[in-house]
């Protein structure tokens, strides 16, 4: 089973819950919050490997290039510009490769454009791997790095994915790649609003899911509203002093994971 921990609003406890889920399941886990990856800080782990993540863009051979501009015409992102000289803005390239195919003189060859890296950790407690995607600061291509991580873990039958905040296309990409989603929320007006939007995306992606209401004792009134609105099973997790060390929280996550497996079956 491939399972995502997701939640819409930031700061509701996605990563804390993902850390508990990792320790309960012992599965390879991927941190897909690539602009601000921090799951490794929630687990006792050591880094074992690091690899660059690159897109394939064009490199020009000025002796062959006649400045015909065919490459710039097929470049929908505006990365290649041809005037009296040939120019590439590597930060804008999306690696589609259309320019490489379009060149009538074979003047363009593939080159790597780095967007970030993947750090591979070994989690001491479980012996399992944590893959953490890390986009270069200031790079705009977070969705490409998420895609890279999803593609490279596609063949793993058991996988836990920690999703970034939000409900946009990156989150949809993650949801399309999993069998089930553990949705984390909190009993506040903002978290409920975000939950509603995320659930719309989850329904479009047709992913079985359950909802864990983290820090449910913050507000009985808003917890009830979440429970009333959500059409899938929900669990209440308490506010605790040490969320990562709490047996009580761990037990709720275990129950929610069991419930999720039933939903997905």
């Amino acid at each position, binding site marked *: 089973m491939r399972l995502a921990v997701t939640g819409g609003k930031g*700061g509701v406890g996605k990563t804390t819950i993902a850390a508990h889920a990792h320790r309960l399941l012992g599965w390879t886990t991927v941190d897909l919050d690539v*602009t601000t990856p921090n799951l490794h800080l929630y687990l006792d782990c050591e880094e074992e490997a690091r690899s660059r993540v690159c897109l394939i863009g064009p490199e020009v051979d000025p002796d062959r290039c006649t400045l015909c501009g065919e490459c710039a015409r*097929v470049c*929908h992102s505006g990365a290649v510009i041809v005037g009296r000289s040939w120019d590439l803005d590597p930060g804008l390239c999306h690696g589609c490769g259309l320019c490489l195919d379009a060149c009538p003189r074979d003047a363009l060859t593939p080159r790597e454009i780095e967007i970030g890296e993947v750090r591979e950790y070994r989690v001491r407690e479980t012996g399992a791997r944590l893959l953490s995607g890390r986009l270069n600061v*200031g790079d705009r291509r977070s969705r490409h790095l998420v*895609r890279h991580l999803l593609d490279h873990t596609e063949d793993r039958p058991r996988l836990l994915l920690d999703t970034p905040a*939000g409900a946009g296309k990156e989150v949809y990409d993650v949801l399309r790649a999993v069998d089930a989603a553990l949705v984390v929320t909190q009993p506040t*007006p903002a978290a409920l609003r975000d939950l509603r939007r995320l659930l*719309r995306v989850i329904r479009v992606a047709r992913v079985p899911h359950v909802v864990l209401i983290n820090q449910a004792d913050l507000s009985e009134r808003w917890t009830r509203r979440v429970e009333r609105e959500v059409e899938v099973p929900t669990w209440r997790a308490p506010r605790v002093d040490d969320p990562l060390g709490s047996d009580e929280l761990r037990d709720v996550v275990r129950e929610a994971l069991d419930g999720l497996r039933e939903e997905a079956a």
Partner: protein
Amino acid sequence: MRIAVLGGKGGVGKTVLSIALASELGAVLVDADVTEPDTPAYLNLERERDVTEVRARYAVRTDGCAGCERCLEVCPWRAVDDPIACDGCGACAIACPEDAIELRETELGRIAESREPELGLRVVHPETEPWAPELADIVHRMIPEDEDCVIDCPAGLGCPVIAALSAADAAVLVTSPDPAALHDYRRAEALTREFGLPAVRVLNRAGSDEREGFDVVIPEDERVLRAALDRDPGGLVHALREPARRVAELLPDGG
């Protein structure tokens, strides 16, 4: 002056501080969290007008398709015929040897301007489908041209945050004291530096310990949580008035 409020990690208090700061400065509040805009959950907004429509393109295969799947090869999201995943870039249409890709246009919502009557605050906020593409472009279209504004950034440091920083004159960096938030905050600080912006550094929900390296320290305050749960904008701004004033004073030209 345009001020971007960012921090990297979610839930550190960006939105509540943005509301208090916009209120303190009498500036327009811009909600740059396009996929999950939260300002309407904290404020009692009365809609004034639509600023603009948000439209998007998506690619579909038409009858001329010969099934070569060249379109899918050039699409990192394999999103041809999937309007939710498609970002409308058009690479597939350029690649198709049969000219069989059609880029259709659809309306995904609007950018709205509303008023918070109690605070006298004007808010520009997105009302789009969560899967709207080109988030940076939407953020740019929300930022008013000749007015002071406070731009409340989403969690993370992706396109919408970069768009907000590229339009801003100053930044307010917000974190809470836990290690994960501080980790994300360091990356937010590095990003802000790349834009060469002056920044006011805020430690929110501080305990008694770490406060070095911060310009403004806001202690944990139950009143903020209560005001959020009760949807009480006046109470929210009241609870954060002092720190918002301090932040405003530290901004270039006092905001």
